[in-house]
């Protein structure tokens, strides 16, 4: 489901950019702050950011698109990250991920029809001694089995 574009306040974008200009290498902190505020790096911010940093919009696009974290449009209300890395695979992580995606009728990066959850792959949450691991927003969950995954999905309203 396509979510509506966030309401953009040009003054706020200018403030976010301004707040970071004193940093050495301010671009990633600016992009994180924009995403924190709007759930994505809104297209309306590209011009002001490029101008403030004296880079081209093409360069800015190159940076935004290089990193997995930055979004063009907001995710669902919650983001569920399922670890796909080796330690989680060694204890059934792949089957868990596939079962979850099937259950939700999604592919990776997809969002449930009610807009509740976006499912993303992640390569390692550093919970490799209590795998398989997932993260719902900022909350980590280890030794995830079908029952625990159901509880996480229910909590997220999926």
């Amino acid at each position, binding site marked *: 489901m396509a979510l509506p574009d966030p309401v953009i306040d040009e003054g706020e974008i200018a403030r976010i950019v301004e707040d970071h200009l004193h*940093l*050495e*290498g*301010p*671009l*990633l*902190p600016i*992009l*994180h702050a924009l995403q924190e505020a709007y759930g994505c790096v809104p297209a309306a911010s590209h011009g002001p950011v490029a101008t403030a*940093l004296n880079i081209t919009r093409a360069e800015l696009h*190159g*940076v935004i698109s*290089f*990193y*997995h*974290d*930055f979004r063009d449009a907001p995710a669902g209300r919650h983001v569920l*990250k399922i670890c796909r*890395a*080796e*330690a*989680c*695979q*060694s*204890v059934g992580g792949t089957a868990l991920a596939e079962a979850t995606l099937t259950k939700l009728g999604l592919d990776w990066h997809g969002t449930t029809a009610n807009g509740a959850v976006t499912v993303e792959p*992640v*390569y*390692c*949450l*550093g*919970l*490799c*001694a*209590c*795998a398989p*691991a997932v*993260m719902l927003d*900022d*909350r*980590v*969950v*280890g*030794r995830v089995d079908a029952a625990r995954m159901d509880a996480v999905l229910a909590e997220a309203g999926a």
Partner: protein
Amino acid sequence: MKIYVPIDSAAKALGAEDVVRALVQAAADSGQAVEIIRTGTRGMIWLEPLVEVETDGVRYGFGPATPEDAAAILDGTSVKALGPVEDLDWMKRQTRLTFARVGVTDPLSLDDYQAHGGLAGLRRALGLTGQEIVDEVKASGLRGRGGAGFPTGIKWQTVHDAQASRKYIVCNADEGDSGTFADRMIMEGDPFTLIEGMTIAGLGVGATKGYVYLRSEYPDAIKVMRRAVDIARGAGVLGADVLGSGRTFDMEIRVGAGAYVCGEETSLLNSLEGKRGVVRAKPPLPALEGFLGRPTVVNNVISLATVPVIFEKGAQHYADFGLGRSRGTVTLQVAGNVARGGLFETAFGISLDEVVNDLGGGSASGRPVKAVQVGGPLGAYMPVSKFDAALGYEELDAEGGLLGHAGLVVFDDTADMLGMARFAMEFCAVESCGKCTPCRIGAVRGVETIDRIAQGDADALPLLTDLCETMKDGSLCALGGFTPLPVMSAVTHFPDEFVRTKEAAE
């Protein structure tokens, strides 16, 4: 009554917050006055959440605790009782130098930190010249714990000798390797030791500014590190007058954006500068032209977090541990399909067999262990026949392995080695920065070639071997250069799984 419960992500992932709530409730119900102190984790992840109750100065463990255990833990009747934590086999067999305080102290209490030896190293370093600091690190034999194993003191010497108006200390906390969590554990469990280590590095090479490049996948570590930097600055450990010495060092926490390749030092520097995280060709070395073109020390979290103990106890004390050219301790991370997983710090030289079968207790599933991937997604799959290998940089290399960041991922006999080889190529294709052709194109072709092998195409295996040679020799950085290691180790040690007839495949 003093009760300790870890606040580490792994403990939280296993329900520590629910246990804390239950303990508070149970204490209220029984009218007991309890003080709950949150700590890092001891590293015995199979016992998490591990609740510790202090009695007469001794901490008694209960774990793995559930909310239902709370009342019995408080009245001393719990069946989860483990006895004094320090007497547990896993604890007694370790040499905890870098991780001495982790699991013991409140991560954000500077008083606690100092009461357990913290800042002693920095105070000593403040009385030394830059060259003396660099010499001490050289004498300790410390090598880069991120994986490359380059001698830390030599890197520092290069930056020390470089002439520049500004120099930087950059901590690589982009711990993206599967099976590794030592960086996360120390940042969440003892953040001041990293701050102290970076400050000593700054004094040593003449840098006044430090950055920690911390991956976004670690939200808890980011919060703890940011808070710790604020506390350290407020207490005068960081800032314009480090511990009243008149010397300057300050630092910032920067958050990555989900690119694995940014764990490579030059790509990390580009990312820190606000660029695409593409790899830079070397030379110039980052030690001469690093962040913003200035001389920069780029060290892993564990390397920098080990510096304080080297200065506190002396370089020789540290160098006395270890094997061959691998001096000091290695922070092993035992993970994957293993009965007892966690962090185990010990002198270099312990065998793979002892770690996996003795300490780790074999697989979690109870099935036979088939292979262990050592050193993350770019490390080799070591078969059981190689389990006598000693864990040291050169020793493992001689066995065709890679120590890397010392993460060990255990697989049982259900592991599909062709599938794991394919995953290694797929991961490289997803995470390649795209700068060099062998990695960018090679990884994609690698996935396709392994699919042909799976379909029973006998011509594909020599092609895969050839492709791996090209990637190994022709890639700019370790991502393309070492992806062949897991792939070819799977091919070499499990050849039967790469010979498939067309009928079987269909």
